[in-house]
């Protein structure tokens, strides 16, 4: 342990209950990775603060001793955003799990960061409301992690991302100060720091409370599973649905390999031998949902659908979604190892990019299963490999990188919802120029001049923030320089 880390540990022991400060090597190791398990670092120290005040005190101590810290919620992230620092503190928010308020009349819920995403919806449902962002991991992922990653989910096609559903947050800054960003009402005066903090992957501080927007439960929901001969057909059907002026709650696509995996894992009743399936969900007022469903049904038929199965009850709907939401884990049954990608492309480029991915897969001999949010062009190619085979991991990495290049070439993004983390930091310069990245650093340096908040994530090369410019007082610099006069 470094001397700084020792000092932080001492303070944590004085401040926190004994079981909230973990220094035992074996126990530290249980925190060595998040959902991206092939990056592992044993943290120098783990703290599990019971309240925001003690969390802030630990961060303040980190600041005093220049010790890096990493915040972690449920640890389900898929880009290594919560990968610990060997000489740093891992701040775990799992004890901050109270839902403080659910106020349907205000369409708000106030929660601590360790609260599980789905629990917000469970708490709001009796009042006729729910929390819209729904990452596939929503049964276990935490709100704090959702804010850090600006999490999306299948339904963000219609309802937007975490950033569109948070009104206010309490933030522990990298100096250990507790500040409030935003207000319960929309449009708080001042810079939209909340909008910048959401999705900053823990590099600007740790959120200790969030005020969330609740959305009215829709009157009607229709979920239909549609089989196609090929991903091409399914992709064209998706574009045709959007072109018809329909904004479905979700349109998800899975290809043959992903279908096979999901079927083997959860017996979700997906059509046998289909080249692709779409899961399409429509929600809203009854009359509109019915009209749109008729249109969707026709469009799919015109694009060569082989089978359409409309969920007849909630259990049936849940089964259709189970196949989709368990797809990542299911792939584990057909391949010992896999990489999940998270690239985004313009929706209209879908058929072309899928063909190109297929081409890369064929020429490299690396299998790729495709599961994705077709409605917004967010691809989750699963690159399959067996780490026991020499060179297989490297070949998979290469295919994975080639897929990201395809996304960038088509004007897309290297990550739609999983975040950059440690995993994609090296790809950032492919998407943004040096000036773009430098400008992002201005924001980071304003919050964290010493670079102690989740260092090594998001940005490819850590940069020093340099001197904080002194606040200028007195005369305007232009005036002092004789370039302008007072008027």
């Amino acid at each position, binding site marked *: 342990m470094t001397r700084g880390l020792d000092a932080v540990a001492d303070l944590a022991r004085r401040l926190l209950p004994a079981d909230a400060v973990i220094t035992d090597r074996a126990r530290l190791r249980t925190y060595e990775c998040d959902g991206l398990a092939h990056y592992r670092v044993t943290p120098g120290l783990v703290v599990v603060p019971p309240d925001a005040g003690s969390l802030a005190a630990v961060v303040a101590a980190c600041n005093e001793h220049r010790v890096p810290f990493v915040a972690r919620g449920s640890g389900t992230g898929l880009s290594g955003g919560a990968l610990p620092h060997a000489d740093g503190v891992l701040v775990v928010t799992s004890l901050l799990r109270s839902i403080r308020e659910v*106020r*349907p*009349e*205000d369409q708000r819920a106030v929660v601590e960061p360790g609260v599980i995403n789905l629990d917000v919806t469970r708490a709001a449902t009796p009042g006729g409301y729910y929390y819209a962002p729904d990452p596939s991991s929503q049964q276990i992922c935490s709100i704090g992690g959702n804010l850090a*990653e600006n999490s*999306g989910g299948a339904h*963000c096609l219609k309802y937007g*991302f975490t*950033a*569109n559903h948070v009104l206010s947050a309490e933030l522990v800054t990298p100096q250990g100060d507790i*500040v*409030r960003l935003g*207000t*319960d*009402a929309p*449009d*708080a*005066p*001042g*810079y*939209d*720091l909340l*909008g*910048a903090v959401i*999705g900053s992957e823990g590099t600007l501080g740790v959120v200790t409370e969030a005020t969330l927007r609740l959305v*009215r439960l829709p009157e009607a929901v229709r979920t239909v599973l549609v089989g196609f001969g090929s991903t091409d057909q399914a992709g064209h059907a998706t574009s045709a649905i959007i*072109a018809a*002026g329909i*904004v479905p709650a979700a349109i998800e696509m899975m290809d043959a390999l992903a279908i096979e995996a999901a079927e083997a894992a959860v017996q979700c009743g997906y059509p046998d031998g289909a080249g692709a399936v779409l899961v399409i969900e429509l929600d809203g*007022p009854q*009359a*509109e949902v019915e*009209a749109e469903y008729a249109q969707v049904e026709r469009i799919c038929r015109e694009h060569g659908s082989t089978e359409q199965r409309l969920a007849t009850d909630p259990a049936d709907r849940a089964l259709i979604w189970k196949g989709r939401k368990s797809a990542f884990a299911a792939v584990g049954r057909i391949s010992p190892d896999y990489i999940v990608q998270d690239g*985004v492309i*313009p*929706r209209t480029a879908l058929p072309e990019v899928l063909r190109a991915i297929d081409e890369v897969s064929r020429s490299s001999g690396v299998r790729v299963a495709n599961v994705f949010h077709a409605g*917004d*062009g967010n691809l989750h190619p699963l690159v399959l490999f067996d780490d026991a085979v020499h060179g297989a991991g490297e070949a998979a990495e290469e295919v994975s990188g080639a897929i990201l290049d395809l996304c960038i070439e088509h*004007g*897309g*993004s290297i*990550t*739609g919802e*999983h*975040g*950059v983390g440690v995993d994609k930091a090296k790809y950032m310069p492919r*998407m943004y120029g040096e*000036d*773009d*990245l*430098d400008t992002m650093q*201005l924001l980071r*340096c304003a919050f964290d001049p010493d670079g102690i908040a989740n260092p090594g994530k998001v940005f490819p090369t850590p940069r020093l923030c340099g001197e904080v410019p002194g*606040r200028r007082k007195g005369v*305007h*610099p*232009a005036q002092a320089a004789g*370039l*302008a006069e007072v*008027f």
Partner: protein
Amino acid sequence: MVATALGEAARAAVGSACEVREATGDDAVDGTPAGLVARPADTSEVAEVMRASAAHGLSVVSRGAGTKLAWCPPPESADLVLDLTAMDRVLDHQAGDLIVEAEAGTPLAAVRSVVGEQGQRLVVDETTPGATVGGSLAAHASGPERMLAGTARDLLIGMTVVRADGVVARSGGRVVKNVAGYDLGKLLVGSFGTLGVITRATFRLHPAAETERWVSVPVADADAVHRLTHAVVHAQVVPAAVEVDLGGPARDAASGSFTVQLGGRATGVTRRADAVAHLLGGGAEVAQNAPDGWGRYPWAPDEVGLKLTCVLSGLRDVVAAAAGAGARVRGSAGSGVLYAALPVTAAGGVVAAVDRLRATCVARGGSAVVLQAPPDVERSCDPWGPVPALDLMRRVKERFDPDRRMAPGRFVGGI
């Protein structure tokens, strides 16, 4: 009237970057006289002008159509006004991907017209006639349809900004879903030109509604506004807008109105319009067009214009407080964002009224911001009220604009 004496070197440097002229009295920014007016043709010219202004320490105020230049306190100085109206191109509309990119000086109406040809729309209300893309973003203007899709902040997916030092930076991109890097676009929205110059923006679009209806009922007081708002937002009618228009000395108190906008497919909209009319009760009327003044701010140029926000349970108190102050209130009751026009009596009376209104809004989870006011009122009252995290905001400003040249003094805490 040229009140700033800029050095010849500064003049020459700006002049070599793009089209430039001496400012006139009409170019004054909310009363602050301007020195030069530069009219760059594209992002690279903006960058060149900004490099010149950095080299010569010129303060810079960006201007689109100038419809909201009276908002916020006046800048301490305006050596250079950046007139962005030559940058008025819709650069790219990808109908299949439901996105559009436009230059900052493009009128919102022009963007709406281009995307409208393909049956699409940009759900950013034109709250002042002629408002541009850049101005609407910088001032974070919002109108009735924020109920439906949020504000420009929520629809923005990519931005190009020229920094105070002339560096061009992009953030976001051309796809709706993208979490790569910081979302600098959100930081710039509502920053009133104090962090950089927005030169291009890319937005997410929505399909145009096949049918629209406006269901209105007269309202006389805050109680009715509160009750009707809650009846509508908690129902299953999916309103595109829930607006109130109430009070003010020029109007008969009973002539207020409460209007719900609906959009979508013809059959559905008809059915929902019936449901809303039922919720609003006797006297509700269904119209095919928006009522007068829809989506416009309620104030006259010589009045005090306020933005009042609250959580929905606080609506009654905020509307009542505004009415009690003699203000005319118009805005999105359904999202808790209202605009109020306060007639100017004595400045002291206005300041006291703003303080009382602010106390009510803050207690109901919101804020009260003075967007525009006559100079004597502006000088004597705090336009922003409590601003949480002000210290962090100052640190952000210091990083982006260390010489404090971008619209100095216009923003919170004198930023």
